[in-house]
């Protein structure tokens, strides 16, 4: 019975492999009937694949960065660095650490999770997670290029990103304190036994692959939903509401959430809205999107428990909305 099963598994794998090879060699010779290939199907597919292909290298970088932290940063080192007695004061250096990491929002999720596993308090890891994709030299440059005629947006994005991140960290600490927001793990007792048996490099590679598959399934779903929204959502709908001082930022935040753009590119999309929106609406879009969006929600669900993710989204939404609203009143 077992050998039969094993044979079946082998055949399945070989068939899959042969299928992929066949498609590699002759995929473009297969013509798909026009009824299936309507213009919107084509557009959804193109955008879906594009989001996926573009996010994958950054996920891989995040996975490797997390592996590097795992290998090179010990719990003791972190314990020494993190001021235990002043949880609120520690938010500021955490924001600085986030600013120093030049990674975008896909890559930072596995890093944040690794930091928490290494014993960094959750609220500090979260601050690193929300600041890294905004306070980042590449993002600053692309925002600068896109908004050369409106410098308020450029520095506004950095300042509001920083203030909102501190608020978010403070709220997370208030609500969750020192509780661990990660999904409970099984099999922790295997720990020692496995590490002894393999080399570190092999371990990292195996690890990266497992982590890719853990996050990958969420990425695929997230990319698909974002692609559907990108294709069907008529941006004309936004124009009327976007200039409203109260509803504008909220609508732009919702828009940022569902389109799930990379923080290095969203400034150009925002600048294409240009003068139709108030500065605070544009800032809401530019600050909220990198902190949380649909794709990232799913990535977070791979590691964090549901209750934490939902609360986190609520906190980010409130913090960013308040910041941009006050900004709109002042400027």
């Amino acid at each position: 019975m077992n050998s039969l099963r094993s044979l079946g598994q082998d055949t399945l794998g070989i068939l899959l492999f042969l299928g992929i090879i066949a498609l590699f060699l002759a995929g473009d010779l297969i013509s798909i009937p026009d009824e299936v290939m309507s213009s919107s199907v084509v557009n959804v597919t193109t955008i879906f694949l594009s989001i996926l292909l573009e996010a994958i290298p950054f996920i891989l970088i995040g996975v490797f960065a997390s592996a590097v932290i795992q290998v090179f940063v010990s719990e003791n080192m972190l314990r020494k660095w993190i001021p235990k007695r002043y949880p609120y004061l520690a938010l500021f250096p955490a924001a600085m650490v986030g600013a120093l990491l030049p990674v975008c929002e896909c890559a930072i999720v596995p890093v944040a999770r690794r930091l928490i596993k290494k014993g960094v308090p959750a609220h500090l890891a979260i601050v690193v997670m929300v600041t890294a994709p905004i306070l980042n030299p590449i993002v600053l440059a692309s925002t600068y290029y896109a908004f050369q005629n409106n410098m308020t947006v450029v520095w506004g994005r950095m300042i509001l990103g920083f203030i909102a991140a501190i608020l978010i960290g403070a709220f997370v600490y208030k609500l969750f304190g020192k509780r661990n927001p990660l999904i409970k793990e099984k099999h922790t007792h295997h720990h020692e036994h496995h590490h002894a048996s393999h080399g570190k490099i092999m371990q990292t590679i195996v690890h990266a692959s497992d982590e890719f598959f853990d996050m990958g399934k969420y990425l695929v779903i997230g990319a698909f939903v974002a692609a559907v929204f990108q294709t069907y959502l008529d941006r004309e709908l936004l124009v009327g509401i976007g200039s409203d001082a109260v509803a504008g930022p909220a609508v732009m935040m919702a828009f940022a959430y569902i389109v799930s753009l990379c923080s290095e590119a969203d400034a150009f999309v925002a600048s294409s809205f240009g003068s139709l929106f108030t500065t605070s609406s544009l800032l809401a879009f530019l600050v909220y999107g990198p902190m949380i969006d649909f794709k990232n929600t799913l990535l977070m669900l791979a590691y964090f428990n549901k209750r934490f993710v939902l609360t986190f989204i609520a906190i980010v939404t409130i913090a960013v909305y308040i910041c941009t609203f006050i900004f709109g009143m002042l400027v």
Partner: protein
Amino acid sequence: MKSSEQFHTYIRGIILIGYALLVLKLFLTFNMQNFVAPKMHIYMYFSLGVFLVLGVIQIIRGTSWKGKAHHCDCEGHELPKGFLRSTIVYSLFVIPVVLGFLMPDNLLDSSVAAKRGIKVGNSLFTTAPQAEKGPDVSNEENKETQQHTNQPTLGSYEEFPIEKDFDKLKELMGKQDKIIVRDEQYIQTLSVVDESLDEYVGKEIQLTGFVYKDEGFAEDELVISRFTVTCCVADASVYGILARDGDLGKLEPDTWINVSGIIDKTDFNGMQMPVIKNPVFEVVDPPENPYVEEFYIKIE
């Protein structure tokens, strides 16, 4: 006898190789730029390498009969349980690979443009501009200018120099009688025309783009447009220049054309903007790279 963990490792290895082959094929067929902007390609080479290494290692681990599976339990990675769950999870990974192999050369079309709004000059059209009734003043003026200028002709794109520096480009364009919009500096060139429109009225302009028609456009109105891409086509926006001409207006949306015409200005919802008049054109195949790059000024 193989354990279930080993089977998962084996299947995962094959899927990773599948992704590597997809990326490789997109590069070999020059289709990568249909999905990801050229300046991000370095990251795609990185994924290609990583997928290959991970895939080969996983397949070897998954098929070797020696020893136990080396699955790393310490991190709480969860393997999908049961046949149905595994099938669903792995299908999620296989679907993008299959889709990528089946339709690698699709371009975004004007139905996406309509949903996103088109950027013409510094303004965004998502709403239909009001069709103007009767010839306006600038139209009359234009007839005069047209008599003075030569009939537009379609020239070679290589005739016009590429200038990376925005200010030098401005200077260079000021000296030319005919502006040729090269893909390498598409947005820069159009911004210069838009910025100092009065200076360019009456000059000839040539560019390649696809036909976009908004529902509210008059029959002879269209925008000759291009998608601009920063990182991937998900962030694509549409950038173009308005044209008014009876023959051009008859073209189907999404037709790619090489157009040369005379720049004029028009009043559109209270905004002054350039419009191409009196054009000559030919229908062409989509260019090798249909997307143009966002406008970057180098900080010196």
